[in-house]
């Protein structure tokens, strides 16, 4: 089946933060005071109740001033490090449409997913002791709606579609930019995590760190081992999960199918 994706064309982002408001509003996040750290950024970093952050980066290189704005959130990896690391069955769900979703009922708050994430995205809430991040609005996509951030974006910097279509769109936009003289333009879809369901068009693809993105992300070795040589341990946990699911089935009957979006 087709999987879904979000394309962020950073060359069109104006840092208006409408996506931040849409994310906070759709997810019913409580009002918290932002902090001032000498930039226009709402918060210095993502937070358990703040899943979508525009990062502002002002720098001078070769006498040329740049002020980049770039949206930061869960990348929804094809090979999610968080899922590899998670010991709690059903706490992290890789939906058929590609979305990596957290099920907080099953989250045990161990924070292993934070270690597993090469993008440093999940955040542990000190109050609920559970981990939070962007769900790519799995509740909206399940009923055929685009994610809230994409719905609200005023410059069409954000688009939603199938991963195949958006990869193609990202390539053609890159070609367009290159034809316009932006020679270093390129697509960010890092291979180290098998690619992502959040894709970027960058004006300077050689320096993703200018946009706050890791240059060459991959799942940490320890996390790979966790499901490798020490797989038996994982298997035991998984077996426990299956057994648990079996008893759950016997007691409560079949679970309804995930209404995955196309």
């Amino acid at each position, binding site marked *: 089946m087709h999987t879904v994706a979000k394309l962020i064309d950073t060359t069109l982002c*104006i840092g208006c933060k409408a996506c931040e408001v849409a994310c906070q509003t759709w997810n019913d996040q409580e*009002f918290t005071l932002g902090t001032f750290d*000498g930039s226009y950024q709402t918060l210095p970093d993502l937070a358990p109740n703040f899943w979508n952050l525009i990062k502002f980066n002002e720098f001078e290189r070769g006498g040329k001033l*740049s002020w980049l704005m770039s949206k930061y959130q869960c990348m929804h990896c094809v090979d999610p490090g968080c899922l590899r690391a998670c010991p709690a069955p059903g706490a992290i769900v890789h939906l058929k449409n590609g979305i990596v979703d957290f099920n907080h009922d099953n989250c045990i708050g161990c924070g292993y997913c934070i270690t597993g994430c090469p993008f440093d995205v999940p955040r542990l809430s000190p109050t609920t002791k559970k981990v939070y991040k962007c769900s790519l609005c799995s509740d909206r996509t399940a009923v055929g709606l685009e994610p809230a951030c994409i719905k609200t974006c005023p410059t*069409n910097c954000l688009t939603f579609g199938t991963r195949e279509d958006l990869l193609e769109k990202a390539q053609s936009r890159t070609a367009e930019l290159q034809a316009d003289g932006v020679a270093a333009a390129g697509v960010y879809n890092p291979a180290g995590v098998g690619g992502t369901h959040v894709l970027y068009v960058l004006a300077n693809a050689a320096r993703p760190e200018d946009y706050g993105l890791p240059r060459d992300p991959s799942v940490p070795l320890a996390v790979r081992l966790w499901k490798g040589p020490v797989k038996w341990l994982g298997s035991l946990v998984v077996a426990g999960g299956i057994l648990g699911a079996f008893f759950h089935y016997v007691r409560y009957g079949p679970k309804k199918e995930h209404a995955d979006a196309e």
Partner: protein
Amino acid sequence: MTNGWTDVANADVVLVMGGNPAENHPVGFRFVMEARRKRKAKLVVVDPRFNRTATVADCFVPIRAGSDIAFLGGLIHYALSNDKFQAEYVRQHTNAAFLVKEGYGFEDGHFSGWDAEAKRYDKSTWAYEVDGQGYAKVDPSLEHPRSVFQLMRKHYARYTPEVVAAICGCTKEDFLKAAEMVTVAAANDKSGTVLYALGWTQHSHSVQLIHAAAVVQLLMGNIGMPGGGVNAQRGHANIQGSTDMGAWNMLPGYLKLPRANWATLDEYVKANTPKPLRPDSLNYWSNTSKFMVSLLKAYYGEKATAANGYGYNWLPKAGENDNHSWGFLFDRMHRGGMEGLISFGMNPVANGPNTEKMIGALSKLKWLIVAENFETETAAFWRARELADEYYPDSGEASKIQTEVFLLPAACFAEKDGAFVNSSRWLQWKEAAVDPPGEALRDQEIIARLFLKIRELNEKEGGAGAEPLRNMSWNYANPLSPSLVEVAREVNGRETGTLRQLNGFGELKDDGSTVCGNWLYSGSYTEAGNMMARRGQDDPTGLGLYPNYSWSWPANRRVLYNRASLDHEGKPWDATRAPIRWNGTRWSGDAADYKADAAPQAHGAFLMLPEGVAKLFTPDFAEGPFPEHYEPAESPVENALHPKVSFNPAAFVMDKLGAAAEFPYVGLTYRLTEHFHYWTKHIASSSELQSRFFVEVPHDLAVEKKIASGDMVRVSSARGKVEGPALVTKRIPGLKVSGKTVYQIGLPIHWGWLGKVTGPLINNLTASVFDPNSGTPEYKGFLVNLEKIS
């Protein structure tokens, strides 16, 4: 906007100056991005700050606040001296060929006619040479030394790239790069748009600044063209509507305010009906009497008759030279000359210049009525000392202030129906989403209840204004709460006999047989229904005009002056981009800015003007017929063009001014994308995005003063001070102005003493200095000092 947001996508070059649409109009900015993608349009940003619009620009030129006319004058000079203007357009559609009277001149910063004692100009020499019939003489060759064209060329000869660079603080190379990009639009098949906002309107020379932009756009042949125009990005969902419906010097539809020297309707009409200045001028303001009589019929209904001048005598009249704009109003209040103030959707303590003066003025009132969604600083002005004692230690103690304050809870925009008029002049009807909470009432209900109560008291107890109160027409189904549909129908206008809704202002009469609340809005609510509620998305011209989406004033016209998109014979300058076409008997496409069935050669292209053509040279403004660079009232440098007349001689100054020795830096106020004015500090999500007031400090100045981001700093002016953390940035570069380094301090507005987040009011710093035409305060470019506190 002469054009509209959707039309910006038709541009080949976008000049953003005095505005920052990426941050302050992000939804509209998508059309800039569309122009860039679809037409490969170049984006030129000229601003003191490398702002979020500048980050996506093809060319960014940093300039000093208040130097914009020098920059635009430089563009005019560049276009004229490099033959980069649309010569045929200029010849046919502007007053370039008109001859100016002998006696006009400009010397050492003054135009002819300066009266040093009265501090104003005698404009008699700013006029055309006329023939026996009163028509202006013209020289189509444009070579006569007194032709507007030659006078303009001479006037701007001083604005060389070197002079522009020295005044603005940019480099000559940057200026020339911008000039080259902007003047690409001189080609017949290229259009350029100009987008501006408060960065242009908040100067002591703001109207002339926009005049300068109009001159540039006329030279480029961009007025009337899709993708062209002079486009004001309005800062409030309905501020365009508020201007259209009247202001301190206007009645609805830009009809002049009645004045004491026009004692009768006839005198008013005579004084406000211009005579044509060319034989082919249609001179549409010759219809003034129809607009005015229909408006009076809307005010006074059946009581307005030919015999009583349609009730003209009942209208209040200003004195011949009275000025009731903001500065004069509050100055009078501050001197104890006013009794009360009704403040609707307005927060003078927060948004007036020199906050301490505003607080002082309000404390001299007997009563103050504030109708608002929240308790504002204005409603709580009497608590200034208690709420913000670090800024107003000398303000009166609450118990000693005698002003009686009434705070009326008012519905917010989502709790009301009615129309918003956006920057594009589109009247967009909306429905109320929810009912107002608690005791909050909709504005029209508050106004109706006040009016009916005052009328009742006046009838019982007597007093001034009995006649206008008694005769005011108030025929609403529920007089206590008129529905906005009823009001909209009245504003559109109808025949008095048949009650038929009018189709447009062409049907207005001056014999009392039509009623119309605003001639410009006539056609918005016809027998066919509420045209403002339409949401059709068809685009027959392919130019993004969307004629069936909402309704645009005037006459549903999407591109003003669209007749100028064709030459005198009716041939489009650019056949791929003609908003209107003549089929031999009628005009098609956009609603033609022309007589619907008049052949192209019949009239001049600019119907509203007595000249029939656009004005490069005009006596309309207070400080000169051509825009001239003047320094702000407080400037770090002398005017390089004429040091003896550094500042706009006609501007109004009603405040103490500081000198550069004590206040060496230039302060600029601006808005952030996260907030709307002084409202959204009451809203959770906006407050979360920008919680704290901050001061943007240029990097090199911060190094000099050992200030790091996060350090607390104090910014002070001759009026007051603000304190907050510094945000050190290279985005506001130090500029070399006439050989001297000038630093500008960035001062975002939005905070105050009340709300979910609080901070100092930025207008503690600003001065009561005003543009002489618009009465707008000079919020951009005033002198401040900067100190590190901790």
